[in-house]
């Protein structure tokens, strides 16, 4: 059994590209958890999506052994946290499993909005914050400036904080010593009733769900009958152990202060919600962890197979994804245009994009995703309140007393020279200005209340393009606001295409309608007849485009009697037609739907 005084549980908070993964890798090396060679092969082998986007999607944890200069050998548990606002709740639970957090700040960039948000989360969770100035090997590193910024903005002392280069390994050893001295040892009573915090879980096809926990009190071993306090589910523990850099290492038991995993033949991750408390069924704790909340999807979209025959495969894939991600919700939905599919709920747009990519990459499915929607609150004249996450079922305007849309508090940190452009963007996106603070002479922090609907389209991309990539964004749901909303319908050849309906702020209906019509015109191939495309609001046409009739598609010379060639060509053409979606008599390539949704608002 581990001596609690020799345990240090910590996580790393950092903005994208500020060196979190590199620092984690260095720490793993210095604690001899992995060799340099293995580092390349094993540790960086994350999800493609994570590597490409430079973000962590899933929390991870790893146990290390560190021999300190004080002669003791410490057990370090590094809990890696997701770094995106969509996963805020997961971040807060990961942090709650630790006693300390390394706040890594890039000495060439300074503090970013995301770092700030996560640091506040850490402070709320009573964590000891250990600032770390990184990238000091770079010429442009401003160590003193960065230290000052940490003190000014976050308000924690940083004058003697470790300054490292995760890339070269410079001073990382000192940092490890500081973890020993500065991060408190975990508290807890191993004789008290079992109390563990779930901070992540994933589905393994051999073991069932593997639950990552921080044990607060008590101990757990194979055979313990455990209970999930919020979901009420009860299981017999099959195995417990630790997470090494290379995978799970079983052990006899894990006890108060430790970080480890539990398996119990659990079939679905929805029984093991992040934030829930694991206790012993026969002797439950009377102080479960507070603040458990079920992850609430904020963004909804329809997902359809490109090929209708893949419906069952899509369902299977979603079920499998859900095994690992309880925050993904879905239910069957039917669209006249797209056939059978699913209405899916996501934590945010990034979460949605990740799911789309995983469906395509891991399950090899071609899918069509409809425009993302938020949940609108509609107060009906008959007194009823309806929550609408699908534009297709938006009530008739005559029956609506008041429509409300969700708004967020957005916090944007941006170099001062781009403030104008960003304010203009927020204005355009119906933002309500709250305040602006100068962080230093170079950067400002802007706060706006913004409709969530305006953020989910391409706000983040616009933000980046207007700030040469320097602006950073963080937001949290604030509540609902009365709004003048209308439903925008798209008609192709006179027929309403349900999958292309949008809920939109009334003043933006014309611009958006026209853009969609133009995008459709550009994406629908010419056919043997003229196809009108209309955008309409409440039955009133507000934009119209026309796909002209095809005039020429002929193999002029059937030369030398080479019929085979012509036949091949026609067969290929026939194949291509099969993929088309039929909207009445109009054939639309499946990519059209995606292309229309990917329109760049800045155009």
């Amino acid at each position, binding site marked *: 059994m581990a001596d609690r005084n020799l345990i240090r549980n910590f996580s790393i908070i950092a903005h994208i590209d500020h060196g979190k993964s590199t620092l984690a890798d260095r720490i793993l090396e210095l604690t001899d958890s992995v060799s340099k060679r293995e580092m390349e092969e094993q540790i960086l082998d994350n999800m493609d999506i994570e590597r490409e986007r430079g973000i962590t999607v899933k929390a991870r944890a790893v146990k290390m052994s560190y021999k300190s200069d004080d002669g003791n050998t410490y057990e370090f548990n590094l809990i890696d946290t997701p770094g995106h606002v969509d996963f805020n709740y997961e971040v807060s639970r990961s942090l709650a499993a630790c006693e300390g957090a390394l706040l890594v700040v890039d000495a060439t960039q300074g503090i970013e909005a995301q770092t700030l948000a996560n640091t506040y989360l850490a402070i709320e969770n009573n964590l000891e914050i250990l600032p770390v100035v990184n990238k000091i090997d770079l010429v442009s590193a401003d160590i003193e400036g960065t230290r000052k910024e940490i003190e000014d903005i976050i308000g924690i002392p940083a004058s003697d904080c470790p300054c490292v280069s995760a890339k070269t390994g410079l001073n990382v050893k000192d940092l490890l010593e500081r973890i020993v001295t500065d991060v408190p040892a975990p508290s807890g009573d191993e004789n008290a009733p079992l109390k563990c915090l779930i901070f992540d879980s994933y589905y393994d096809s051999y073991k069932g769900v593997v639950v990552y926990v921080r044990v607060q009190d008590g101990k757990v071993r194979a055979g313990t009958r455990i209970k999930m306090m919020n979901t009420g589910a009860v299981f017999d523990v099959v195995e417990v152990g630790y997470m090494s850099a290379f995978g799970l290492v079983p052990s006899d038991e894990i006890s108060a202060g430790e970080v480890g995993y539990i398996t119990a033949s659990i079939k679905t991750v929805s029984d093991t919600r992040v934030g829930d408390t694991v206790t012993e069924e026969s002797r439950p704790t009377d102080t479960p962890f507070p603040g458990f909340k079920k992850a609430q999807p904020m963004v909804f979209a329809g997902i359809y197979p490109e090929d209708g025959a893949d419906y069952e495969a899509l369902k299977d894939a979603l079920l499998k994804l859900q095994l690992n991600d309880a925050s993904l919700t879905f239910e069957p939905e039917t669209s006249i245009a797209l056939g059978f599919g699913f209405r899916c709920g996501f934590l945010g747009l990034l979460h949605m994009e990740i799911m789309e990519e995983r469906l395509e990459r891991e399950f090899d499915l071609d899918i069509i995703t409809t425009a993302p929607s938020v949940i609108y609150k509609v107060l009906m004249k008959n007194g009823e309140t309806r929550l609408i996450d699908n534009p297709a079922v938006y009530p008739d305007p005559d029956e609506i007393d008041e429509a409300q849309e969700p708004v967020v508090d957005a916090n944007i940190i941006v170099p001062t020279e781009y403030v104008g452009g960003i304010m203009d963007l927020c204005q355009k996106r119906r933002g309500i200005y709250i305040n602006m603070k100068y962080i230093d002479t170079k950067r400002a922090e802007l706060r706006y209340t913004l409709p969530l609907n305006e953020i989910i389209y391409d706000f983040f991309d616009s933000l980046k393009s207007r700030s040469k990539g320097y602006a950073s964004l963080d937001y949290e749901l604030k509540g609902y606001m009365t709004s003048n909303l209308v439903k925008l319908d798209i008609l192709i050849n006179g027929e309403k295409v349900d999958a292309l309906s949008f809920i939109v702020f009334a003043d933006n209906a014309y611009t958006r309608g026209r853009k969609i019509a133009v995008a459709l015109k550009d994406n629908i191939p010419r056919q043997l007849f003229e196809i009108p495309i209309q955008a309409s609001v409440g039955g009133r046409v507000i934009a119209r485009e026309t796909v002209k009739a095809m*005039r*020429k*598609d002929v193999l002029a010379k059937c*030369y*030398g009697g080479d*019929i085979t060639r012509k*036949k091949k060509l*026609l067969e290929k053409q026939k194949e291509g037609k099969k993929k088309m979606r039929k909207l009445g008599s109009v054939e639309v390539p499946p990519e059209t739907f995606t292309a229309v949704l990917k329109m760049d608002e800045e155009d």
Partner: protein
Amino acid sequence: MKKLGVYIHVPFCVHKCSYCDFYSVTQLFEAGEYFRALKEQIMSFKSYLKDWTADSVYIGGGTPSCVDPKYIVETMETLKSVIRFVDNPEITIESNPGTLDTFKIKSYLNCGINRLSMGLQSADDDELKMISRIHDKSGFESSYMLARMLGFRNINVDIMYALPGQKEETLMNTIDYVTSLDPEHISFYGLRVEEGTPLASQEELLAKIPDEDVQYNMYIHAAKRLEKAGYTQYEISNFSKKRMMCRHNCRYWKSGDYIGFGPGAASFINGELYSYTKDLYGFISKPTDYFSNVEKSEKLTLDQQATQYIMLGLRLARGVEAKEYKLRFGRDLEEDYGEKIQKYIDLKYAKRTDKGFRLTRAGLLVSNTILSDILDFS
């Protein structure tokens, strides 16, 4: 006696035109070897062809007119020794106007060739240059006059539309110019950018190709102009004076039998559809080895032949005929296609005739879309 068309491929060109994807090489010095091999291949079919009579020969390429005419003469001799001919067969040779001379023309006429096809493409020298043709308008004109003087009574002139930089006006000038020369036949076809051709990567030229709507107008207006000048459209890309349709090509479109010789040549005989590999040296080394030369071959079922009949027959202005369909394939045209063609009739892309149905001119121009929809090749 069953009638047959014979196709002879001459895979040589002085220079490859940038848009062309037919098989030809510029190693003219291999002509001697090639024609020796060709003779061997034709000879080897003697017994196979004993029940057939040739009523048309088409010597195409490549550029048959770029090789020494003695090879053409010899090939005709060989052909006559392996297959019987009908009285008055149609024997066509393709030519590039820049490669003709008195001796060649006389040689062709003397060995029985009675139809000359001339690849003018455009009477606008700038347009010709753009598609890297080696001749010009005046060269064409003197070759044309020479051919007439020396005795060709059946001449076809090729005209292309949708060329880079071409305007409807310059196209009409070409049409007027050609019709003023009064050839018996005019092939009028659109440029297609084929994958792998030099043109396909010449962005600058591609950008100059007229757009679809302009092409449509070019086609429709030129067709009307040709009709006004006394030419009747009998196929998507072919116009002729009365009774001067190309017999050989009509055989293709009516899904009749034909046999091809030389690399790249295609054949459809006794229900078998096959074509030779586009490999000059492979052919020269083993001209009589059917298996090493055949690239693709398929024996068509009667139903597949019926589909092919529709595919090709709808290229013809007169369309497909129920009686012939029944007679040849034992199937009912209305039952097979009546419903499928109706929507195109409604859109005015097709029309019923007293014998069956046909595509309208606008329909011909989008025939790929229509055919790929109504035909089932499986």
